[in-house]
């Protein structure tokens, strides 16, 4: 039963073809193992097996999603996309010689096991992705999903996750300019922690990951490598596979934002001095991924001397060194001439830098451990040629019943005042102040808009005011009811949020959080959602620059609501013309843009008041969204708008409350006749926004809407310190504020 500590070299593997391999324990299927053996012409060594098991995992190989994600790569690129999908993050030209790169990624499972560190390292990981492209990271966002707000485990998970995101992002000096907090029981036991980062660079500083140039040095930068985050591969550590199966170590990684900050500054200084020939961050799959991807991208041979890797624990074995997900590391390819300069910069910033290998002739990745060959593989077989599956799909059996479920009875007018108070205090609609106050929102001194605005806005150039806007959205209930339209609704909401600030939407990133791809109903949801998203992007003329797929989000076999989180990037020629969401002046006209229909399927009202999920989500009209976006941008450009706020969860009532509270100014509203006040206040019809305009601009603005065929109705005027809806309700702002702000501190404070 004791393990034999003999190193499993390539030579040993060739001699012992029949030795039993624990590939099943490592998650590889019979045919996948057969494919590996065919590629190598022999059985894999233990270390090679570990590498294939990681690189061919769902997480790294995208084997179930690849066939669907192709739709995004096929979208028209537009004239701004400098680097598309496939690299670490897409790069978008924003003019003035600058480019931005942005991406959203999930860190769901680690954040459930260890909320603080899981969330913290989620930020750390996405930041390195952005750094890898050559950009200086300048902001983060955090779309989050939790179980029920009053569930005891949410009390364990949420404060830790929020503290972890703040702890890492604040210490890195990156402003947090937005995100989401959503509660739904489907995320109980499987919270979603998605993290977004955006970086900016001169267009001529874009870095790529390819390792090229025979003789170039492979340099490992940053933290020492430890046993953290080894996870599944730890089964190999026991070297014996008895009946009970080997114990797996929990794959918890601890973040060190200080080291990451130094790594960022050191890398940027190296980029500026043009000292880096290729660079890759170490994230999931650690060195395994970085070595194979750089070699494969460069179509190069590579040799790595694994014993040179600085270790935290001397007893680590080769497969552990290769699988470790220790944070705050980067792999750089550097010419021998530039090496001294690179080492000097690393030293200046106190960053460890170790030459661990070199680019060589040929097309093999050869890894040695004290001169014994433990890996000899074609790198592309790991990085690019993993398995690809067309998984079986099936429309969920309960979908028809869900879609035809009748809504609960609507409340009467007398009940609406109390309903508004309850809704603005409900977990999904209440103020996020308790969360966002734990985040630094202003560091770097360029934050123009952040919480509670529709989109975050950051200035890129002090001289010209060039800037970007970003919003993320995703509604799991809508997507559960119709994955195709749900994904489009997430897209158009983020689009609308960006346009509401006055920015022109130009590009999309996404994080697709779903259940198990081996469940045909989940796979159908995934296929529908990607189809919807691709269709939406095509129609709106937006390229998808990158993203992330997170499968296996389920608790005890029950999948989460399918949750595509969509991030939309917008562009400002001058951020000084941004439109805030809060009412700015007394006595301005309040206009409702778009059409309101009776659309309460999947709504926040049905859920918050009745725990009801059924019917159809709101209809999507992409052309209407485009026109609405144009009007919001034109209104900003021509200085007509004092405020703009998009309508989404909670409908008109929620938007009016938020604009009133944000600006500290009330409104007198007169609802149009012909539709019940309840429906007008709580319907979640898409393609709508509330704006305020000075009286002097009203005619010009309404004529512009008319000219573009956008419905525009004057519904009232900003006034006083209460929100009054004629013949329906009157609510002092203080009372609203108390209801809106009290919930999260009460639950988590």
């Amino acid at each position: 039963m004791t393990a034999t500590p003999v190193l499993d070299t390539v030579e040993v593997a060739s001699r012992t073809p029949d030795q039993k391999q624990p590939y099943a324990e490592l998650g590889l299927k019979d045919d996948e193992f057969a494919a590996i053996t065919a590629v190598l012409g022999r059985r894999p060594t233990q270390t090679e097996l570990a590498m294939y098991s990681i690189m061919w995992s769902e997480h790294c190989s995208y084997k179930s999603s690849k066939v669907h994600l192709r739709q995004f790569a096929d979208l028209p690129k537009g004239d701004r996309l400098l680097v598309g999908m496939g690299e670490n993050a897409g790069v978008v030209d924003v003019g003035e010689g600058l480019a931005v790169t942005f991406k959203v990624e999930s860190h769901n499972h680690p954040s459930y096991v260890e909320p603080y560190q899981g969330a913290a390292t989620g930020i750390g990981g996405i930041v390195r992705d952005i750094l890898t492209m050559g950009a200086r990271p300048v902001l983060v966002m955090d779309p989050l999903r939790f179980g029920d707000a009053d569930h005891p485990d949410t009390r364990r998970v949420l404060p830790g996750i929020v503290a972890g995101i703040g702890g890492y992002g604040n210490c890195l000096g990156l402003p947090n300019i937005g995100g989401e907090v959503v509660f739904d029981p489907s995320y109980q036991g499987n919270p979603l922690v998605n993290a977004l980062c955006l970086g900016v660079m001169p267009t001529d500083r874009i870095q790529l990951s390819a390792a090229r140039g025979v003789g170039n040095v492979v340099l490992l930068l940053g933290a020492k490598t430890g046993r953290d985050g080894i996870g599944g591969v730890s089964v190999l550590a026991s070297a014996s596979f008895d009946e009970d199966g080997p114990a797996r170590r929990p794959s918890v990684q601890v973040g060190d934002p200080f080291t990451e900050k130094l790594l960022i500054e050191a890398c940027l200084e190296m980029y500026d001095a043009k000292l880096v020939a290729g660079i890759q961050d170490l994230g999931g799959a650690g060195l395994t991924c970085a070595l194979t991807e750089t070699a494969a991208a460069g179509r190069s041979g590579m040799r790595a001397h694994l014993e040179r890797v600085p270790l935290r624990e001397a007893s680590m074995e080769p497969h552990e060194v290769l699988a470790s997900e220790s944070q705050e590391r980067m792999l750089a390819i550097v010419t021998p001439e530039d090496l001294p300069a690179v080492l000097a910069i690393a030293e200046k910033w106190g960053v460890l830098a170790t030459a661990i290998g070199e680019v060589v002739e040929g097309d093999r990745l050869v890894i040695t451990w004290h001169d014994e060959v433990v890996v000899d593989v074609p790198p592309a077989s790991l990085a690019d040629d993993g398995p690809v599956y067309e998984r079986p799909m099936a429309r969920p059996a309960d979908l028809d019943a869900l879609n035809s479920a009748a809504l609960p009875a609507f409340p009467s007018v007398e009940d609406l005042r109390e309903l508004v108070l309850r809704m603005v205090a409900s977990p999904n609609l209440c103020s996020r102040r308790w969360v966002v106050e734990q985040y630094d929102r202003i560091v770097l001194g360029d934050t123009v808009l952040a919480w509670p605005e529709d989109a975050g806005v950051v200035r890129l150039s002090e001289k010209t005011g060039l800037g970007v806007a970003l919003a993320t959205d995703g509604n799991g209930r809508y997507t559960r009811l119709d994955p195709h339209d749900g994904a489009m609704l997430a897209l158009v909401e983020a689009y609308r949020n960006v346009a509401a600030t006055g920015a022109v939407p130009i590009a999309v990133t996404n994080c697709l959080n779903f259940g198990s791809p081996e469940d045909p109903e989940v796979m159908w949801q995934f296929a529908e959602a990607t189809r919807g998203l691709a269709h939406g992007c095509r129609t709106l003329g937006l390229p998808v620059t990158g993203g992330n797929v997170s499968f296996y989000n389920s608790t005890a076999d029950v999948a989460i609501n399918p949750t595509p989180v969509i991030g939309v990037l917008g562009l400002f020629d001058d951020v000084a013309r941004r439109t805030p969401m809060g009412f700015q002046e007394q006595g301005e006209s309040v206009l409702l843009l778009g059409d309101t229909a009776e659309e309460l399927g999947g709504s926040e009202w049905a859920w918050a008041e009745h725990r009801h999920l059924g019917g159809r989500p709101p209809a999507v009209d992409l052309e209407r969204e485009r026109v609405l976006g144009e009007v919001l941008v034109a209104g900003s450009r021509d200085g007509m708008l004092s405020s703009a706020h998009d309508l989404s969860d909670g409908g008109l009532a929620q938007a009016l409350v938020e604009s009133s509270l944000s600006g500290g100014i009330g409104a007198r509203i007169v609802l149009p006749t012909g539709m019940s006040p309840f429906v007008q206040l709580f319907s979640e019809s898409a393609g709508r926004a509330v704006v305020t305009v000075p009286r002097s601009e009203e005619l010009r603005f309404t004529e512009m809407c008319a000219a573009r065929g956008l419905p525009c109705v004057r519904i009232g005027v900003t006034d006083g310190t209460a929100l009054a809806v004629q013949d329906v309700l009157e609510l002092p702002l203080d009372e609203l504020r108390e209801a809106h702000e009290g919930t999260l501190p009460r639950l988590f404070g």
Partner: protein
Amino acid sequence: MTARIGVVTFPGSLDDRDAQRAIRLAGGEPVALWHGDHDLQGVDAVVLPGGFSYGDYLRAGAIARFAPAMASVIEQAGRGLPVLGICNGFQVLCESGLLPGALTRNVELHFVNRDQRLVVESTASPWTSAFEPGQEIVIPVKNGEGNYVASTEVLDALEGEGRVIARYLGRNPNGSARDIAGIRNERGNVVGVMPHPEHAVESLIGTAGTDGLGFFSGLVTTLVAA
């Protein structure tokens, strides 16, 4: 003549560029200083910026105070060089003994970032000379260890000698003793503040307004007049 004001960058400093911008907007000339250099390049004043020097892992500011640049700052502060420590910089000033007391974990145990109302009390420092005593201003706080503590004797002395430069109004964001947001040394040249004046210098940025500019413009005016 324009005032040359140094901003020291420690490993983990975050608001250094922001402080430089604030100096520029106030009409001064920012000079980047590196923690590892003794040389302060003959600057007329020094800002120790906010951030998480050395990760703030042990205690905020504990390691940074040993930097070579700090040895020079301590020496020249003794000769009257104006020094402003903001947030992490305030922590460094306390750790290095240039200011009394210490900054500990916020009582609510969270990092907190919000626009904060303050009342300026002591204007007997170049850094606060642009304000009127009793003037109310709004600038953002953002810290996890901003809870000012000192012995009763020290607190009494600070108040008795008029060395409290600003206090929190309304909700005390971190539990600071006697609502203290910032203090100065006897001479008035060394000031530590927990809130971030450099984040309230442009109406376009953030939501606090431009009250923070006074910290820098007051200094520039004083230096140029001298």
